């Protein structure tokens, strides 16, 4: 029985390692773009995999664009967390706040929106053009099945902030639909 258990386990073990060997350079590159530090970037990759292991059930295929995007999102946000800590230590916390967009002036009026067959692709394009903090939050929620608390833990922010980001992202996307109509 023990041997059977070990054999059965091999598939899960290989999944984690396969992911690592498939995407480690990509993740490193993503982390290095933010951190500009070799060792910190390595740490970000390592930390990312600790997170990924806890959410292995969210990954179906190893080699697919969706999984590729997922590991990049995880690594990017881990790297941003490292940057936040380093920036906080350097007393430059303002840099982080500037990435948030104020959407209070963004109006969405259902009457100004026409839903057509192309609406999905329009919104898709709009998502791809969103700032990373909104895009990542939205994709983690909608595509990768994370709940608000899980996103908050990953990004080291409060669940309230996650809600705000999702709300703002939604507003921006609706505005994008209105923009198309105009």
């Amino acid at each position, binding site marked *: *029985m*023990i041997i059977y*258990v*070990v054999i*059965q*386990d091999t598939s*899960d*073990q290989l999944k*984690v*390692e396969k992911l*690592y060997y498939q995407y*480690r*350079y*990509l993740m*490193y*590159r993503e982390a290095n773009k933010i951190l500009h530090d*070799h*060792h910190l970037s*390595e*740490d970000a*990759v*390592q930390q990312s*995999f*600790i997170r990924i*292991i806890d959410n292995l059930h969210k990954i179906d295929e190893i080699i*697919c*664009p*969706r*999984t*590729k*995007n*997922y590991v*990049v999102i995880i690594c990017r946000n881990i790297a941003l967390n490292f940057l936040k800590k380093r920036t906080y230590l350097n007393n430059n916390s303002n840099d982080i706040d500037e990435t948030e967009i104020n959407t209070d002036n963004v109006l969405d009026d*259902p009457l100004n*929106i026409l*839903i057509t067959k192309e*609406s*999905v*692709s*329009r*919104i*898709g394009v*709009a*998502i*791809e053009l969103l700032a990373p903090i909104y*895009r990542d939050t*939205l*994709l983690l929620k*909608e*595509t*990768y099945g994370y709940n608000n608390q899980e996103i908050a833990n990953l990004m080291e922010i409060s669940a309230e902030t996650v809600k705000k980001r999702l709300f703002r992202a*939604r507003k921006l*996307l*609706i505005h994008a639909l209105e923009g198309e109509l105009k």
Partner: protein
Amino acid sequence: MNENKTFDKLIDQLIHDAANISADNLGQNLPEPEPVEFSEKHNLAMKKLFKQERRKIIIRKMIRNSKKVAILLLVLVLTASISIFSVQAWRVKFLNFIMNIGQTNSDIQFWNDNGSGDTYSSDDVTLGYIPEDFKFVSSQARMNGVSLLFQKDENSFALQIQPVDALLAVDTEKAEMEKIIINGKEALYSSNNNTNLLVWHDDIYSYLLSGNISKSEMVRIAEKVQK
């Protein structure tokens, strides 16, 4: 109000569908990076991480499987217990087995009045030997003594015990008589047609064994009676 809700639901669905498509597109558009030389420290840390995870998974699976095995064993033990204790013959054999463990030369005693098998015991008397398959039928208190009846099919025997100074009435008409020794004491054996009798004493009690079992069986029973 309902229109706004419908609109929100529609938008949410659109966003959900579009998000899935975007995730695929973004993944496809990511460029292939160049290989990087990771440090030895990083490589070791990753190996350690994978080893830890492997161990966790194995332990988790073993715990899950052992729970299943434990439940299965419990069900088997319960089923076996119910079967054993609901069938008298099995119950007796099982108790015999349990009591024999760790003992070398012991007499097995059943502390109930429905004794069957090779011995019988009650508050009054212990029979260290009973012929095979004889079952206890009844007991009667008589004066200062007791009378026990055992039976197997058409065969039976009775053991009557009373104080040694009490009178024992025995029918020996046309019977063949024989003196024998039981536990160092003089005993009398009588055989008449189908009825055999064995009478003996131990200074405190007198015993009368009567029935249609053989002389050798009677002697065996007599030698193992304890009052």
